[in-house]
């Protein structure tokens, strides 16, 4: 009996020892610390102006709750203790502060048209209810303009910028985060960006570009040996060259790389597992999708969307989308040639840039 009792003690000790590492699991089961459903945010790619809208709503709430006797021109703190300045223009003392290395740590609310000399740093959001023109080499955390906005050369925007009117961005600027306009975004040369959205996004230099002569359309039939029809698209095995001025109807999927020759016209969408090269004056009515890179020459027109899993390099004078049929341009790296026009949305997850303008 004593041996049995001794065994039961050993058994109990063993069971307790075995259950010890299960304590965290049992505790989590009985007193859960993590039991809410995963937050389904519905991460929306389309609304680039989301932060700007949020800021507008925030500002409206804060200004609404300022004391009623607060003058229109004022320097102080908002109800949530954010330091701010409001007025038709920034006082010289604050401009001086903005030009110092540390920058101006106040939310700026401009009630009149304003122009900056340049070289300032604004650590908090800036709102302009009237026209605003920033100077060169200015750093903004974020800017919201109710009319048009002009950002001088060498501007850096750290989070977002949105204009209800046109947004003009000078050469060599950096638009980190989101940049959007309800109308037109005009980009200078060597502008770096992440996400852009507007009815029209235009890279400067287009006015100087020559037009191309109209192509002479030639019907083109893909050789039967490399193509087969799958549903409503034609699948091509290997690489494909669509000759100059050809017209091809229907959607195309190419397992290798594809070159659409100069002046050729694809009345449909294009997908390639390899590279896509669009020759000068080529036209694709639908989407252009590549698992690697897309490169286009001069004056190419694409209905959109344009998506590459590595890089997109659009030549000068390209057009993506249309005024009433906006589209999307998406790739990790994007380069936009001079005079490129994109209607809609551009997303460069690793960074995009506009080409340098000719001297």
């Amino acid at each position: 009996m004593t041996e049995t009792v001794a065994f039961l003690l050993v058994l109990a000790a063993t069971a307790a020892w075995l259950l010890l590492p299960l304590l965290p699991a049992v505790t989590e089961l009985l007193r859960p610390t993590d039991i809410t459903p995963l937050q389904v945010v519905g991460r929306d790619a389309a609304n680039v102006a989301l932060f700007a809208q949020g800021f507008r709503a925030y500002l409206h709430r804060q200004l609404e709750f300022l004391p009623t006797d607060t003058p229109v021109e004022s320097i102080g703190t908002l109800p949530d203790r954010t330091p701010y300045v409001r007025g038709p223009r920034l006082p010289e003392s604050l401009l001086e502060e903005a030009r110092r290395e540390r920058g101006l740590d106040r939310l700026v609310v401009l009630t009149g048209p304003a122009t900056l000399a340049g070289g300032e740093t604004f650590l908090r959001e800036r709102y302009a209810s009237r026209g605003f023109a920033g100077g060169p080499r200015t750093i903004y955390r974020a800017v919201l303009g109710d009319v048009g906005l002009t950002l001088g050369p060498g501007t850096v925007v750290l989070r977002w910028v949105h204009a209800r009117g046109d947004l003009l961005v000078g050469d060599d600027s950096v638009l980190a985060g989101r940049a959007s306009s309800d109308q037109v975004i005009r980009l200078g040369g060597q502008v770096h960006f992440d996400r852009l959205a507007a009815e029209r996004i235009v890279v400067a230099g287009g006015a100087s570009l020559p037009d191309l002569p109209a192509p002479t359309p030639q019907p083109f039939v893909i050789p039967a040996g490399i193509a087969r029809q799958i549903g409503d698209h034609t699948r091509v095995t290997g690489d494909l060259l669509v000759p100059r001025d050809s017209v091809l109807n229907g959607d195309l999927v190419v397992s290798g790389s594809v070159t659409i020759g100069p002046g050729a016209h694809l009345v449909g969408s294009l997908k390639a597992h390899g590279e896509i090269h669009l020759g000068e004056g080529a036209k694709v009515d639908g989407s252009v999708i590549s698992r690697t890179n897309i490169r286009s020459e001069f004056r190419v027109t694409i209905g959109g969307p344009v998506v590459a899993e590595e890089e997109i390099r659009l030549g000068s004078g390209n057009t993506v989308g249309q005024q009433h049929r906006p589209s999307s341009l998406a790739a990790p790296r994007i380069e936009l040639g001079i005079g490129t026009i994109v209607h809609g949305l551009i997303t460069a997850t690793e960074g995009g840039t506009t080409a340098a303008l000719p001297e």
Partner: protein
Amino acid sequence: MLGMAIPRDRILVAGLLGIGGAVAVVAGLNPLAELWARGFELLAGPLGMPGGVGTQGTSILGLLTLQTPFYLLEAGPPDAAMLRLVAVLAGAILVATMALPPRFVPLRYFLRFLILLQGISLGYFALAPAGSFPYTLPSYTAGLIGMGQVVLVILPVILAVTYYLFDISWGRKLLLTALLLGHLAVMIPLQATVHAWLIARGSLLFLPPLFLVFGILVHVLVFVAFYGWGMSWPSTRGSG
């Protein structure tokens, strides 16, 4: 979260710790075996397990001899009375499982699996020729301890490829490793002791279910429990 960059130095350190940990465990196995043997000797008396403690030496690649302690305790096959008693008990438990409410479905399946194994063992001992059972209690406990030693050696390697790669502080990773190894270092001899006592008292009839369900599967349960706990710790980026 899109993914997690694993810096090269973390991969390197993980690999070194995995291999180094395994080597360290190998180096510590014989002193640990010595401790286990002392423990067995201490427990054998109160538990009424005569025969003493033996040690089995196994040469590892000619580099070292791994000592494995075990109980020199014998157990025989079940007699008819034991067979009947266990059969009745197994039947009763089987019937009882039918009365379990739906929320105990996993328990129901587990018990039935256990009953099935015990039933196969019953059938074997009832029908197989006497003396045909291929295992003795001493060889069984030696095997159990030996298996445990192997588990201790490979655990650092398993942790290296499933745990060390994550963005959890090295202090916490080493803590988890130490706790896991320490736990099993105590668990393994206790487990062998419990098995040996039950088989010695109850006969070899209980060896198959004990081995197949309460053998290495217990070590796996312990590992997964520690692993789940360790993986719930916050990341070094503070996003948890």
